């Protein structure tokens, strides 16, 4: 039975990854999950210098999901390379580094610093709804998205995944723009902008007013976007948004995702990634699927 998939020439032992920002760099969850079993660890977004993120409260629960407005707190690329990439180098798993910045220059700066590290791939976060500058501004404008993709591709030594925002009218267009600009893959979806109001205190629950919605609630939107993007582009898609079980993951794969990532579900059950991997194997065995790649995009 083959569960390995390949993206831009890089092979992953299975299609199950961690969604950026929900798994740190794997350290905290390594107490629960054997990182060697994962297809890849996708790290929390890293910028050129340390970012302190947004004020608290940064998280809020919603029906079947959650809002977050972390604001990309991170230690900056130097500490990240020294500590996080070094930690991950001890594991037999792929490492995808999620990159953020306020300007194209900052993104490119991080990408360049990563050139001669053990990072296998780069995921460019142009879709975080929780920071004022950069991020989502790039992800909602086709022109800006094309430009930043090209700039990054010029300097990147590793394959580049553009992480797309669901807060757009036409996800297929955004995926196409990335493909045309040279991206090696796209990942989707980042969180959907949402809001929660505390009616007793008559104020926003999040200090940032809005936050990004994730969790099972958003899965149907994410599956639809993966499907639409898969009809529009040939480059591989990494799908995410509400995955909490193997069944969820298989929906994304059948819709056209080559790999999938588990995000908010880790917070409820730290063993989710391992369970998803096992469950996919079980489904393949039960349904006599010898190669997972047969399932990619099989529903049309």
């Amino acid at each position, binding site marked *: 039975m083959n569960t390995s998939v390949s993206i831009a020439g890089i092979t992953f032992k299975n299609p199950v990854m961690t969604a950026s*920002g*929900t*798994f*740190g760099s794997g*350290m*905290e*969850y390594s*107490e*629960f999950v054997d990182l060697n079993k994962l297809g890849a660890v996708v790290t*929390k977004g890293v910028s050129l210098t*340390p*970012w*302190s*993120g947004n004020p*608290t*409260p*940064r*998280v*809020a*629960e919603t*029906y*079947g*999901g*959650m809002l*977050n407005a*972390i604001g990309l*707190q*991170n*230690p*900056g690329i130097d*500490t990240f390379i020294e500590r996080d990439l070094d930690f991950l180098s001890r594991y037999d798993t792929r490492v995808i580094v999620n990159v953020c910045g306020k300007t194209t220059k900052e993104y490119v700066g991080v990408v360049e610093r990563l050139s001669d590290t053990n990072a296998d791939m780069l995921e460019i976060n142009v879709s975080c709804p929780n920071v004022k500058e950069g991020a989502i501004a790039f992800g909602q404008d086709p022109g800006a998205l094309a430009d930043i993709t090209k700039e990054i591709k010029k300097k990147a030594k590793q394959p580049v995944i553009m992480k797309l925002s669901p807060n757009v009218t036409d996800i297929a267009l955004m995926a196409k723009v990335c493909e045309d600009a040279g991206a090696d893959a796209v990942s989707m979806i980042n969180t959907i902008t949402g809001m929660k109001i505390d009616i007793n205190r008559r104020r926003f629950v999040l200090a940032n007013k809005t936050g990004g919605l994730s*969790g*099972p609630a958003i899965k149907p939107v994410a599956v639809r976007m993966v499907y639409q993007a898969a009809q529009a582009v040939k480059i591989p898609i990494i799908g995410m948004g509400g995955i909490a079980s193997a069944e969820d993951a298989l929906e994304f794969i059948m819709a056209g995702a080559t790999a999938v990532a588990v995000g*908010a579900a*880790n*917070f*409820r*059950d*730290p*063993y989710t990634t391992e369970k998803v991997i096992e469950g996919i194997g079980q489904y393949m065995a039960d349904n006599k699927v010898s190669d997972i790649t047969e399932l990619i995009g099989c529903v049309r």
Partner: protein
Amino acid sequence: MKIREKSAIISQECLCNGIYSMWIETNAAEYASSGQFISLYSNSDARLLPRPISICEIDNTINPGRLRLVYRVAGAGTDEFSHMTAGDRLDILGPLGNGFLAPVTERITPETVALLVGGGIGIPPMLELAKSLQCNVMAVAGYRSDKEMFLTKELEGAGRLIVATDDGSFGTKGTVIDAIRAEQIKADMIFACGPKPMLKGIKDLAEDMGIPAYISMEERMACGVGACLGCVCESTHIDDHSKVNNKRVCVDGPVFNASEVEL
């Protein structure tokens, strides 16, 4: 060692208006210490995030493997827990956080005088702390009124107890700070848990007294294990994790030396 499992509810009782006490049986008890907390997960599929609740008592002697949690009904999740009864199952993750004694940089000797201060629903974690400290323990507990007092007997059993009530219906009228001042308490260190204004008062008081204060902080959480950066509090020094000034309440805390955090 953190345990993610379905715990079993052993007993549940209402201590006073809106305050519940629950004993659960869990493997987490073996690894728990005072000031740590447990993330409780709702049985509703609509509510995905954990409810962090401090450990109030650890029973490792009579019925090993049991933990006591005392909590206030604050919303839908805690309301759900309050309706559970013996035999019900409750998903948990824990023990989490550092606990009271981990950040203590001073040596504690049998002669040490430790002042334990709890305000309202900040009182429960003081009980296990009082029981586990091998020194002179003085506790100050603040309530709204005599009608909303709980855990006083248990705290008296562990050392001297001073009570303050907002309305003066029992003990000193006023806050725990008022009570400490009124009783002119002297101590070598303070441990505190309660609402933010109280913690701020304790921080100032400790500075005045020239002694360290270890305070337990609260913040909204998602992962509970340090990965999501949801639960940070502002720290006076650059934090180790993100190199900014944000410590994670769930792993760097919830107990901090008061001088480490901005309040």
